[in-house]
């Protein structure tokens, strides 16, 4: 069981010429689920991209550390090796590269050293979220529906067992059954190995299956409200207007 924290402090970042995150701070501890909610344009996806180091985004100030490691100083692959995982909102197609191949390459790099059997873990994880086994040999995200892609991201999370996972709108494109599978799997990971979760979402429905310990409301690139699970219900009822 890992213990540690992902600390975001006064983060300012955006795309060239436009500051989108304007001093964002929050801390996620191992085993906790934090939800980040906010209207379109509040900076939710930018936060996910900046944390993982997607090309095209720039950091203007602040810091992000994982157990004291300065993530912003590292290239993407080293952030992953430090224990950060991003389940992407729009997982990218990589023609000709299968899940098995990519996870075989990635297994060398997981925190705690390579795990023994990719296929074994892959099959077990696939069964847990009802991910069709015939997708395992298919090219990454090619010819997968939106929902299958999200299951695929969750599957990789389960195989790689990162210390902290950012879920960027993992609920979009999921039907009710898939949402339940994905939410349950992530929830279980918090107790299985102490996964810390930062779940970015537009809607409350994810949070019915993935129970947040803390909810943050994001607006204008800042955290404008923080509370317990009840905050998600308030936002769901009254909308974001009060926070913008």
């Amino acid at each position, binding site marked *: 069981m890992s213990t540690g924290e992902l600390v975001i402090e006064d983060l300012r970042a955006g795309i060239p010429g436009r500051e989108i995150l304007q001093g964002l701070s929050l801390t996620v501890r191992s085993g906790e689920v934090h939800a980040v909610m906010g209207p379109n344009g509040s900076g939710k996806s930018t936060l996910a991209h900046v944390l993982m180091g997607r090309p095209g985004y720039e950091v203007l100030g602040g810091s992000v550390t994982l157990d004291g490691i300065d993530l912003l100083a590292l290239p993407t692959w080293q952030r992953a090796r430090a224990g950060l995982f*991003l389940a992407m909102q729009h997982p990218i197609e*990589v023609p000709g*590269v299968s899940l098995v191949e990519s996870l075989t*390459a990635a297994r060398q790099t997981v925190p705690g050293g390579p795990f023994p059997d990719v296929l074994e873990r892959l099959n077990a994880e696939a069964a847990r979220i009802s991910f069709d086994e015939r997708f395992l040999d298919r090219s*990454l995200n090619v010819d997968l529906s939106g929902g299958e892609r999200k299951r695929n991201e969750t599957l990789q999370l389960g195989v790689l067992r990162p210390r902290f996972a950012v879920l960027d709108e993992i609920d979009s494109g999921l039907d009710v059954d898939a949402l339940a599978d994905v939410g349950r799997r992530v929830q279980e990971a918090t107790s299985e190995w102490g996964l810390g979760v930062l779940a970015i979402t537009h809607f409350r429905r994810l949070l019915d299956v993935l129970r947040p310990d803390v909810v943050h409301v994001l607006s204008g690139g800042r955290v404008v409200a923080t509370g317990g699970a009840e905050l998600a219900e308030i936002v769901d009822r009254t909308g974001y207007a009060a926070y913008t």
Partner: protein
Amino acid sequence: MSAEARATGLDPREAPILPTFTPDHAAALPGAPWLAQRRVEAAEAFSSSPLPTEKDEVWRYSRIDDLDLERFRPTGSEHPGGDPGPSSSGRLHALVDGLGARSGLVVTINGVLATLSSSVGDDVVVLGRATDHPEGADLLGAVLADPHDFPLLNDAFAIDPVVIDVQAGATVADPVVVVHVVSGAAGGAVFPRTVVRTGAGATAGVIEIVVDADSGLLADAPTDLFSSAGPPVERLVVPVTELKVGDGASLAYVSIQSLGGATWQMAHQASIIGADATLSSYAVALGGSYARLRTDSALMGESGASRLRAAFIGRDDQMLDFRTLQDHRAPRTTSDLLFMGAVADRSHSVYSGLIRVRRGAVKSDAMQTNHNLVLDEGAHADSVPNLDIEENDVKCSHGSTVGPVDEDQRYYLESRGIEPGRAEQLIVAGFFESIADQVPLPGARDLIGRALAERSGVSHG
């Protein structure tokens, strides 16, 4: 033509007087009288027409201005039996056997028929020299009726044009394999010629390989497909293939070019597709110094369909040059073209393609896609898609990409902890794997997948 040249009546593109590609040389080649006559006429036509230059649109970006035809002479007829040499013949068998089950095998050495075998009867496939086929004179040139420049030179100097005549209604389970081996001293010019006729309602597959005896797929060491015995030998190779797909017929055609590093290749593949017929073609370009492939596909009958694929990898200083024409001449015809490849080192690729939809070809559907992966800073790819649509009620789309390994794909893999170099290897290997998957004949798929992986410098592991 400059104003001055016009005034003096001097055409700077005056027909060449080539000491080696003359009608007399063509007349001296062996063969039936009709073939001899055909050669001489072609040689005369070639001699009286100007050589193409880079100023011609279809030769833009090419290296045609650097080609000095006088450095080459027709070869092959001095060894009428064909002689692959003892060492390459073993490797040749290994190569051919690696393709799996086949219905027939034709091997030419420098254009001369050396091996001919068939495991199916004449009621299924008639296989052999055009001169031995009762309709040989009609079959040759039936698709390429009005040749220019290099196809014309092929008409003039092809020694043993090969015919694969699939009888109407026949189903040929395993492909016919044709291998054209080029070998011998520097300066040899070789003119492989293959004609495939798929009769009405027939189903067949053909694998055609053009290979240098001393390099590429016939190189000594089986573990390294692209080692070469010595310095590459300068050659000129002009393969011409005619594919006629009869009404309701289905032809899968795979061609693999594995020539030496100092070879000029001027290849032409022309097809005519009948009503309700399907051509699925797949070309692989690996070798050559300047290797050009022109692919002209004419959809002549209603609801005919073509699926045209090519995969290529450029290395060193080589140039791989592709010109395509998807010519829709009948209603409800479909063409789907995808040419994909990579350029590494200082190599250069050209893709220039035209979709042409003629008046009357209503409800036609044409797709043209070209993806180029640029692996090194010194490498370069040109991509020029074109449309010429004379009809309104049609669907056409074209697109191309030129660039390094996709940044988003790399980011995705890196976000899983895979280091950049390994991520790039996986993506490049995947790029070729995804196109090797589309080889229409399973027997050729393994060889092509392996050749592409080795040539691209990435292999799985």
